[in-house]
Protein backbone atom coordinates (compact mmCIF):
# COMPACT_ATOMS: atom_id res chain seq x y z
CA UNK A 1 0.00 0.00 0.00
CA UNK A 2 2.83 2.35 0.87
CA UNK A 3 4.44 1.65 -2.47
CA UNK A 4 1.69 3.42 -4.32
CA UNK A 5 2.08 6.68 -2.48
CA UNK A 6 3.88 9.17 -4.61
CA UNK A 7 7.59 8.72 -4.02
CA UNK A 8 8.64 12.38 -4.14
CA UNK A 9 5.87 13.54 -1.89
CA UNK A 10 7.03 10.84 0.48
CA UNK A 11 10.63 11.99 0.67
CA UNK A 12 9.41 15.54 0.82
CA UNK A 13 7.03 14.74 3.64
CA UNK A 14 9.60 12.70 5.53
CA UNK A 15 11.95 15.65 5.31
CA UNK A 16 9.29 17.97 6.67
CA UNK A 17 8.52 15.53 9.47
CA UNK A 18 12.20 15.45 10.46
CA UNK A 19 12.21 19.23 10.46
CA UNK A 20 9.19 19.42 12.73
CA UNK A 21 10.50 16.83 15.19
CA UNK A 22 14.06 18.10 15.32
CA UNK A 23 13.52 21.13 17.62
CA UNK A 24 11.73 19.01 20.24
CA UNK A 25 14.57 16.53 20.32
CA UNK A 26 17.12 19.33 20.47
CA UNK A 27 15.40 21.00 23.43
CA UNK A 28 15.00 17.71 25.31
CA UNK A 29 18.64 16.82 24.69
CA UNK A 30 20.06 20.15 25.81
CA UNK A 31 17.87 20.48 28.91
CA UNK A 32 18.23 16.91 30.10
CA UNK A 33 21.91 16.70 29.29
CA UNK A 34 22.74 19.80 31.32
CA UNK A 35 20.59 18.74 34.26
CA UNK A 36 21.83 15.18 34.09
CA UNK A 37 25.51 16.03 33.96
CA UNK A 38 25.40 18.69 36.68
CA UNK A 39 23.27 16.49 38.90
CA UNK A 40 25.37 13.42 38.29
CA UNK A 41 28.73 15.14 38.67
CA UNK A 42 28.07 17.58 41.46
CA UNK A 43 24.90 16.81 43.40
CA UNK A 44 24.39 13.05 43.48
CA UNK A 45 25.92 11.53 46.65
CA UNK A 46 29.10 9.50 46.36
CA UNK A 47 28.83 5.73 46.44
CA UNK A 48 30.00 4.27 49.75
CA UNK A 49 32.04 1.59 48.02
CA UNK A 50 33.21 3.07 44.75
CA UNK A 51 33.36 6.68 45.97
CA UNK A 52 33.26 9.29 43.24
CA UNK A 53 34.42 6.99 40.45
CA UNK A 54 30.90 5.60 40.19
CA UNK A 55 29.82 8.90 38.61
CA UNK A 56 31.01 7.42 35.32
CA UNK A 57 27.90 5.22 35.30
CA UNK A 58 25.82 8.33 34.60
CA UNK A 59 27.20 8.22 31.08
CA UNK A 60 28.27 4.59 30.81
CA UNK A 61 24.87 3.03 31.51
CA UNK A 62 22.90 5.38 29.23
CA UNK A 63 25.35 4.87 26.38
CA UNK A 64 25.28 1.09 26.85
CA UNK A 65 21.47 1.08 26.84
CA UNK A 66 21.32 3.37 23.83
CA UNK A 67 23.91 1.36 21.91
CA UNK A 68 21.58 -1.63 22.05
CA UNK A 69 18.50 0.52 21.53
CA UNK A 70 19.98 2.19 18.47
CA UNK A 71 20.89 -1.18 17.00
CA UNK A 72 17.36 -2.50 17.50
CA UNK A 73 15.82 0.60 15.93
CA UNK A 74 18.24 0.27 13.05
CA UNK A 75 17.16 -3.34 12.56
CA UNK A 76 13.48 -2.37 12.74
CA UNK A 77 14.08 0.26 10.08
CA UNK A 78 15.90 -2.39 8.04
CA UNK A 79 12.95 -4.80 8.25
CA UNK A 80 10.59 -2.03 7.15
CA UNK A 81 12.96 -1.12 4.33
CA UNK A 82 13.16 -4.66 2.99
CA UNK A 83 9.59 -5.84 3.54
CA UNK A 84 7.77 -2.74 2.33
CA UNK A 85 10.57 -1.53 0.06
CA UNK A 86 10.38 1.82 1.76
CA UNK A 87 13.37 3.84 0.69
CA UNK A 88 13.18 6.29 3.58
CA UNK A 89 13.55 3.43 6.04
CA UNK A 90 16.72 2.39 4.22
CA UNK A 91 18.04 5.89 4.72
CA UNK A 92 17.13 5.69 8.39
CA UNK A 93 19.31 2.57 8.73
CA UNK A 94 22.25 4.53 7.39
CA UNK A 95 21.40 7.54 9.52
CA UNK A 96 21.32 5.57 12.77
CA UNK A 97 24.45 3.45 12.24
CA UNK A 98 27.13 6.13 12.84
CA UNK A 99 25.30 7.49 15.89
CA UNK A 100 24.99 4.00 17.30
CA UNK A 101 28.67 3.34 16.67
CA UNK A 102 29.59 6.56 18.52
CA UNK A 103 27.41 5.69 21.49
CA UNK A 104 28.93 2.20 21.58
CA UNK A 105 32.40 3.70 21.52
CA UNK A 106 31.44 5.91 24.48
CA UNK A 107 30.17 2.88 26.37
CA UNK A 108 33.50 1.14 25.75
CA UNK A 109 35.70 4.09 26.69
CA UNK A 110 33.76 4.90 29.86
CA UNK A 111 33.67 1.21 30.75
CA UNK A 112 37.44 1.06 30.48
CA UNK A 113 37.89 4.27 32.46
CA UNK A 114 35.65 2.89 35.17
CA UNK A 115 37.43 -0.45 35.13
CA UNK A 116 40.92 0.93 35.69
CA UNK A 117 40.33 2.15 39.29
CA UNK A 118 37.96 -0.72 40.07
CA UNK A 119 39.77 -3.71 38.57
CA UNK A 120 43.20 -2.19 38.21
CA UNK A 121 43.18 -2.79 34.46
CA UNK A 122 41.88 -0.76 31.54
CA UNK A 123 40.41 -3.75 29.89
CA UNK A 124 38.88 -6.77 31.55
CA UNK A 125 37.03 -9.41 29.54
CA UNK A 126 33.82 -8.70 31.36
CA UNK A 127 30.57 -9.79 29.72
CA UNK A 128 29.14 -6.35 29.10
CA UNK A 129 32.34 -4.83 27.77
CA UNK A 130 32.89 -7.80 25.47
CA UNK A 131 29.33 -7.58 24.15
CA UNK A 132 29.78 -3.86 23.56
CA UNK A 133 32.99 -4.52 21.66
CA UNK A 134 31.27 -7.04 19.41
CA UNK A 135 28.38 -4.63 18.96
CA UNK A 136 30.87 -2.01 17.80
CA UNK A 137 32.18 -4.51 15.23
CA UNK A 138 28.63 -5.07 13.99
CA UNK A 139 28.04 -1.34 13.63
CA UNK A 140 31.33 -0.86 11.82
CA UNK A 141 30.45 -3.79 9.56
CA UNK A 142 27.17 -2.15 8.53
CA UNK A 143 28.92 1.17 7.94
CA UNK A 144 31.84 -0.19 5.95
CA UNK A 145 29.55 -2.38 3.87
CA UNK A 146 27.44 0.66 3.04
CA UNK A 147 30.45 2.73 2.05
CA UNK A 148 31.99 -0.08 0.00
CA UNK A 149 29.11 -0.02 -2.50
CA UNK A 150 29.22 2.57 -5.23
CA UNK A 151 25.54 2.21 -6.04
CA UNK A 152 23.92 3.69 -2.97
CA UNK A 153 20.61 2.01 -3.65
CA UNK A 154 22.19 -1.41 -3.45
CA UNK A 155 24.31 -0.20 -0.54
CA UNK A 156 21.24 0.66 1.51
CA UNK A 157 19.68 -2.72 0.90
CA UNK A 158 22.88 -4.61 1.64
CA UNK A 159 23.34 -2.69 4.89
CA UNK A 160 19.73 -3.44 5.82
CA UNK A 161 20.22 -7.16 5.27
CA UNK A 162 23.36 -7.12 7.40
CA UNK A 163 21.59 -5.17 10.15
CA UNK A 164 18.84 -7.80 10.28
CA UNK A 165 21.32 -10.67 10.30
CA UNK A 166 23.13 -8.86 13.10
CA UNK A 167 20.04 -8.35 15.20
CA UNK A 168 19.14 -12.03 14.95
CA UNK A 169 22.64 -12.87 16.10
CA UNK A 170 22.83 -10.21 18.79
CA UNK A 171 20.85 -12.09 21.47
CA UNK A 172 22.79 -15.26 20.69
CA UNK A 173 26.08 -13.39 20.94
CA UNK A 174 24.97 -11.66 24.11
CA UNK A 175 23.84 -14.89 25.70
CA UNK A 176 26.95 -16.77 24.67
CA UNK A 177 29.24 -14.04 26.00
CA UNK A 178 27.39 -13.90 29.33
CA UNK A 179 27.62 -17.64 29.57
CA UNK A 180 31.26 -17.69 28.56
CA UNK A 181 31.95 -15.08 31.22
CA UNK A 182 30.36 -17.07 34.04
CA UNK A 183 32.34 -20.06 32.81
CA UNK A 184 35.66 -18.26 33.10
CA UNK A 185 34.63 -16.27 36.14
CA UNK A 186 37.52 -14.19 37.38
CA UNK A 187 37.43 -12.27 40.65
CA UNK A 188 35.57 -9.17 39.53
CA UNK A 189 33.02 -6.97 41.17
CA UNK A 190 29.59 -7.50 39.64
CA UNK A 191 29.34 -4.51 37.48
CA UNK A 192 26.93 -1.61 37.83
CA UNK A 193 24.09 -3.32 39.59
CA UNK A 194 21.39 -0.90 38.57
CA UNK A 195 18.56 -2.79 40.23
CA UNK A 196 19.57 -2.09 43.80
CA UNK A 197 20.41 1.53 43.14
CA UNK A 198 19.39 4.25 45.59
CA UNK A 199 16.85 6.78 44.39
CA UNK A 200 19.33 9.62 44.88
CA UNK A 201 21.35 8.00 42.12
CA UNK A 202 18.46 6.51 40.18
CA UNK A 203 16.86 9.79 39.14
CA UNK A 204 19.95 11.47 37.77
CA UNK A 205 20.63 8.24 35.88
CA UNK A 206 17.14 8.39 34.40
CA UNK A 207 17.64 11.99 33.36
CA UNK A 208 20.86 11.03 31.63
CA UNK A 209 19.22 8.13 29.83
CA UNK A 210 16.58 10.50 28.47
CA UNK A 211 19.30 12.95 27.49
CA UNK A 212 21.20 10.27 25.56
CA UNK A 213 18.04 9.01 23.90
CA UNK A 214 17.25 12.59 22.89
CA UNK A 215 20.74 13.02 21.50
CA UNK A 216 20.59 9.82 19.49
CA UNK A 217 17.16 10.83 18.15
CA UNK A 218 18.33 14.33 17.31
CA UNK A 219 21.47 13.34 15.43
CA UNK A 220 19.60 10.54 13.66
CA UNK A 221 17.04 13.05 12.42
CA UNK A 222 19.78 15.39 11.26
CA UNK A 223 21.55 12.62 9.41
CA UNK A 224 18.31 11.32 7.97
CA UNK A 225 17.63 14.78 6.59
CA UNK A 226 21.08 14.75 5.04
CA UNK A 227 20.56 11.35 3.49
CA UNK A 228 17.19 12.37 2.05
CA UNK A 229 18.71 15.52 0.58
CA UNK A 230 21.64 13.58 -0.82
CA UNK A 231 19.41 11.05 -2.53
CA UNK A 232 16.83 13.54 -3.74
CA UNK A 233 19.43 16.07 -4.83
CA UNK A 234 18.08 16.39 -8.34
CA UNK A 235 14.43 16.72 -7.42
CA UNK A 236 12.74 20.06 -7.80
CA UNK A 237 11.62 20.21 -4.18
CA UNK A 238 15.21 20.29 -2.96
CA UNK A 239 15.86 23.26 -5.26
CA UNK A 240 12.85 25.04 -3.88
CA UNK A 241 14.06 24.37 -0.37
CA UNK A 242 17.37 25.96 -1.22
CA UNK A 243 15.76 29.04 -2.71
CA UNK A 244 13.52 29.46 0.29
CA UNK A 245 16.25 28.97 2.88
Amino acid at each position, binding site marked *: MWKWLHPYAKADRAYQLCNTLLPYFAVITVVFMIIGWVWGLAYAPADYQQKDSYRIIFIHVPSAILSMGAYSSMAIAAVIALVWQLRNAELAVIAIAPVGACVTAIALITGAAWGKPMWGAWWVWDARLTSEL*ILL*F*LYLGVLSLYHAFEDKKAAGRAASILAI*VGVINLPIIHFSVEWWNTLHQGATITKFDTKAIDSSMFWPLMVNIVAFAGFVGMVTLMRLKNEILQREKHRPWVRQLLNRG
Partner: protein
Amino acid sequence: MLRQHSYWQLFSAVCKKDLQLAFRQRAEIVNPILFFLIVITLFPLAIGPEPGLLSRMAPGIIWVAALLSTMLGLDKLFRDDYHDGSLEQLIASSYPLPLTVLGKVVAHWIITGLPLVLMTPLFALLLNLDNQALIATVLTLLLGTPLLSFIGAIGAGLTVGLQKGGILMSLLVLPLYIPVLIFATSAIDTSTMSLDYSGQLAILGAMLVIAIISAPIAISSALKVSVS
Protein backbone atom coordinates in the same frame (compact mmCIF):
# COMPACT_ATOMS: atom_id res chain seq x y z
CA MET B 1 9.98 -28.99 -24.41
CA LEU B 2 8.48 -30.20 -21.20
CA ARG B 3 9.63 -28.75 -17.94
CA GLN B 4 9.62 -30.97 -14.92
CA HIS B 5 10.43 -29.29 -11.68
CA SER B 6 12.22 -31.34 -9.17
CA TYR B 7 13.83 -29.55 -6.26
CA TRP B 8 16.21 -32.40 -5.76
CA GLN B 9 17.41 -32.14 -9.34
CA LEU B 10 18.21 -28.46 -8.89
CA PHE B 11 19.93 -28.98 -5.55
CA SER B 12 22.09 -31.81 -6.82
CA ALA B 13 22.89 -30.00 -10.07
CA VAL B 14 24.15 -26.92 -8.23
CA CYS B 15 26.00 -28.97 -5.67
CA LYS B 16 27.54 -31.24 -8.28
CA LYS B 17 28.74 -28.38 -10.44
CA ASP B 18 30.63 -26.77 -7.56
CA LEU B 19 32.14 -30.06 -6.47
CA GLN B 20 33.14 -30.84 -10.04
CA LEU B 21 34.86 -27.48 -10.34
CA ALA B 22 36.62 -27.92 -7.02
CA PHE B 23 37.90 -31.38 -7.90
CA ARG B 24 39.10 -30.10 -11.24
CA GLN B 25 41.32 -27.54 -9.51
CA ARG B 26 42.37 -29.55 -6.53
CA ALA B 27 44.16 -26.57 -4.97
CA GLU B 28 40.80 -25.31 -3.82
CA ILE B 29 40.40 -28.32 -1.55
CA VAL B 30 44.02 -28.76 -0.58
CA ASN B 31 44.92 -25.14 0.19
CA PRO B 32 42.54 -24.57 3.11
CA ILE B 33 43.73 -27.79 4.73
CA LEU B 34 47.36 -26.79 4.28
CA PHE B 35 46.58 -23.37 5.69
CA PHE B 36 44.89 -24.98 8.68
CA LEU B 37 47.88 -27.23 9.21
CA ILE B 38 50.37 -24.36 9.01
CA VAL B 39 48.40 -22.20 11.45
CA ILE B 40 48.34 -25.10 13.88
CA THR B 41 52.08 -25.57 13.47
CA LEU B 42 52.69 -21.90 14.26
CA PHE B 43 51.09 -22.04 17.68
CA PRO B 44 53.50 -24.47 19.37
CA LEU B 45 56.35 -22.50 17.82
CA ALA B 46 54.95 -19.28 19.26
CA ILE B 47 53.89 -20.38 22.73
CA GLY B 48 56.30 -23.23 23.36
CA PRO B 49 55.96 -26.98 22.96
CA GLU B 50 55.01 -27.83 26.53
CA PRO B 51 52.41 -30.65 26.19
CA GLY B 52 50.17 -29.54 29.07
CA LEU B 53 49.92 -26.00 27.76
CA LEU B 54 49.29 -27.22 24.22
CA SER B 55 46.47 -29.54 25.12
CA ARG B 56 44.89 -26.77 27.17
CA MET B 57 45.06 -24.37 24.27
CA ALA B 58 44.21 -26.95 21.60
CA PRO B 59 40.43 -26.28 21.39
CA GLY B 60 41.04 -22.58 20.86
CA ILE B 61 43.81 -23.17 18.36
CA ILE B 62 41.84 -25.68 16.33
CA TRP B 63 38.74 -23.53 16.23
CA VAL B 64 40.46 -20.26 15.39
CA ALA B 65 42.32 -22.07 12.62
CA ALA B 66 39.03 -23.57 11.41
CA LEU B 67 37.38 -20.12 11.30
CA LEU B 68 40.25 -18.70 9.28
CA SER B 69 40.50 -21.56 6.82
CA THR B 70 36.75 -21.49 6.10
CA MET B 71 37.12 -17.81 5.27
CA LEU B 72 39.59 -18.72 2.52
CA GLY B 73 37.07 -20.61 0.45
CA LEU B 74 34.17 -18.27 1.16
CA ASP B 75 35.60 -15.52 -0.97
CA LYS B 76 35.37 -17.77 -4.01
CA LEU B 77 31.93 -19.16 -3.19
CA PHE B 78 29.92 -16.82 -5.42
CA ARG B 79 32.69 -14.86 -7.13
CA ASP B 80 33.06 -16.92 -10.32
CA ASP B 81 29.31 -17.23 -10.73
CA TYR B 82 29.01 -13.50 -10.29
CA HIS B 83 31.65 -12.68 -12.87
CA ASP B 84 30.56 -15.09 -15.58
CA GLY B 85 26.87 -14.28 -15.21
CA SER B 86 25.76 -17.67 -13.86
CA LEU B 87 24.28 -15.92 -10.85
CA GLU B 88 21.88 -14.05 -13.12
CA GLN B 89 20.87 -17.32 -14.75
CA LEU B 90 20.27 -18.85 -11.33
CA ILE B 91 18.11 -15.90 -10.27
CA ALA B 92 16.19 -16.01 -13.54
CA SER B 93 15.58 -19.73 -13.21
CA SER B 94 12.09 -20.57 -12.13
CA TYR B 95 13.36 -22.39 -9.06
CA PRO B 96 13.45 -20.62 -5.70
CA LEU B 97 16.86 -19.06 -5.18
CA PRO B 98 17.26 -20.14 -1.51
CA LEU B 99 17.30 -23.75 -2.67
CA THR B 100 20.06 -23.03 -5.17
CA VAL B 101 21.99 -21.26 -2.45
CA LEU B 102 21.55 -24.23 -0.14
CA GLY B 103 23.16 -26.42 -2.78
CA LYS B 104 26.13 -24.10 -3.08
CA VAL B 105 26.64 -23.82 0.66
CA VAL B 106 26.49 -27.59 1.10
CA ALA B 107 29.08 -27.94 -1.65
CA HIS B 108 31.26 -25.38 0.10
CA TRP B 109 31.05 -27.34 3.31
CA ILE B 110 31.97 -30.58 1.58
CA ILE B 111 34.98 -28.84 0.06
CA THR B 112 36.26 -26.97 3.11
CA GLY B 113 34.52 -28.19 6.26
CA LEU B 114 34.39 -31.92 5.81
CA PRO B 115 38.13 -32.35 5.12
CA LEU B 116 38.86 -30.57 8.41
CA VAL B 117 36.60 -32.97 10.27
CA LEU B 118 38.30 -35.91 8.65
CA MET B 119 41.79 -34.57 9.35
CA THR B 120 41.14 -33.85 13.03
CA PRO B 121 42.89 -36.99 14.37
CA LEU B 122 46.10 -35.73 12.80
CA PHE B 123 45.77 -32.32 14.42
CA ALA B 124 44.95 -33.98 17.70
CA LEU B 125 48.31 -35.73 17.57
CA LEU B 126 50.12 -32.48 16.89
CA LEU B 127 48.45 -30.72 19.80
CA ASN B 128 48.60 -33.56 22.27
CA LEU B 129 44.84 -34.01 22.62
CA ASP B 130 43.58 -37.08 24.43
CA ASN B 131 40.89 -39.36 23.01
CA GLN B 132 37.97 -37.82 24.83
CA ALA B 133 38.87 -34.37 23.61
CA LEU B 134 39.42 -35.74 20.13
CA ILE B 135 35.87 -37.09 19.96
CA ALA B 136 34.52 -33.81 21.25
CA THR B 137 36.56 -31.88 18.68
CA VAL B 138 35.28 -34.03 15.84
CA LEU B 139 31.70 -33.61 17.02
CA THR B 140 31.93 -29.84 17.39
CA LEU B 141 33.60 -29.49 14.01
CA LEU B 142 30.90 -31.67 12.48
CA LEU B 143 28.17 -29.42 13.84
CA GLY B 144 30.11 -26.18 13.74
CA THR B 145 31.76 -26.05 10.32
CA PRO B 146 28.46 -26.18 8.37
CA LEU B 147 27.33 -23.33 10.59
CA LEU B 148 30.43 -21.39 9.58
CA SER B 149 29.66 -22.05 5.92
CA PHE B 150 26.09 -20.82 6.27
CA ILE B 151 26.91 -17.66 8.20
CA GLY B 152 29.92 -16.95 6.04
CA ALA B 153 27.91 -17.30 2.84
CA ILE B 154 25.77 -14.35 3.95
CA GLY B 155 28.88 -12.20 4.08
CA ALA B 156 30.09 -13.65 0.79
CA GLY B 157 26.75 -12.85 -0.85
CA LEU B 158 26.81 -9.28 0.39
CA THR B 159 30.35 -8.57 -0.78
CA VAL B 160 30.55 -10.57 -4.02
CA GLY B 161 29.92 -7.52 -6.19
CA LEU B 162 32.61 -5.43 -4.56
CA GLN B 163 36.13 -4.91 -5.89
CA LYS B 164 37.90 -5.75 -2.66
CA GLY B 165 35.23 -7.76 -0.97
CA GLY B 166 37.50 -10.33 0.65
CA ILE B 167 38.72 -8.39 3.67
CA LEU B 168 35.41 -6.66 4.19
CA MET B 169 33.72 -10.06 4.20
CA SER B 170 35.95 -11.25 7.04
CA LEU B 171 35.12 -8.11 9.00
CA LEU B 172 31.41 -8.74 8.57
CA VAL B 173 31.49 -12.44 9.23
CA LEU B 174 34.00 -12.99 12.03
CA PRO B 175 31.95 -11.23 14.76
CA LEU B 176 29.00 -13.43 13.82
CA TYR B 177 31.19 -16.50 14.34
CA ILE B 178 31.75 -15.72 18.02
CA PRO B 179 28.88 -17.81 19.46
CA VAL B 180 30.03 -20.84 17.46
CA LEU B 181 33.54 -20.35 18.74
CA ILE B 182 32.43 -19.99 22.35
CA PHE B 183 30.19 -23.04 22.47
CA ALA B 184 32.47 -25.29 20.43
CA THR B 185 35.60 -24.57 22.45
CA SER B 186 33.71 -24.86 25.70
CA ALA B 187 32.39 -28.26 24.64
CA ILE B 188 35.94 -29.46 24.03
CA ASP B 189 37.10 -27.90 27.30
CA THR B 190 34.32 -29.62 29.19
CA SER B 191 35.17 -32.96 27.60
CA THR B 192 38.79 -32.72 28.81
CA MET B 193 37.40 -32.50 32.33
CA SER B 194 35.40 -35.70 31.63
CA LEU B 195 32.13 -33.83 32.08
CA ASP B 196 28.97 -34.00 30.02
CA TYR B 197 29.10 -31.59 27.08
CA SER B 198 25.86 -32.53 25.35
CA GLY B 199 24.40 -29.13 26.30
CA GLN B 200 26.90 -27.24 24.19
CA LEU B 201 26.41 -29.68 21.32
CA ALA B 202 22.65 -29.21 21.58
CA ILE B 203 23.07 -25.45 21.32
CA LEU B 204 25.36 -25.82 18.31
CA GLY B 205 22.81 -28.16 16.75
CA ALA B 206 19.99 -25.71 17.40
CA MET B 207 21.99 -22.90 15.85
CA LEU B 208 22.68 -25.10 12.84
CA VAL B 209 18.98 -25.81 12.37
CA ILE B 210 18.16 -22.11 12.57
CA ALA B 211 20.94 -21.37 10.09
CA ILE B 212 19.78 -24.01 7.60
CA ILE B 213 16.29 -22.53 7.65
CA SER B 214 17.02 -18.83 7.68
CA ALA B 215 20.48 -18.32 6.19
CA PRO B 216 19.54 -19.33 2.60
CA ILE B 217 16.86 -16.63 2.60
CA ALA B 218 19.33 -14.00 3.79
CA ILE B 219 21.96 -15.21 1.33
CA SER B 220 19.62 -15.10 -1.63
CA SER B 221 18.41 -11.60 -0.84
CA ALA B 222 22.04 -10.56 -0.43
CA LEU B 223 22.84 -12.05 -3.84
CA LYS B 224 19.93 -10.23 -5.45
CA VAL B 225 21.28 -6.96 -4.06
CA SER B 226 24.75 -7.76 -5.36
CA VAL B 227 23.51 -8.62 -8.84
CA SER B 228 21.29 -5.54 -9.17
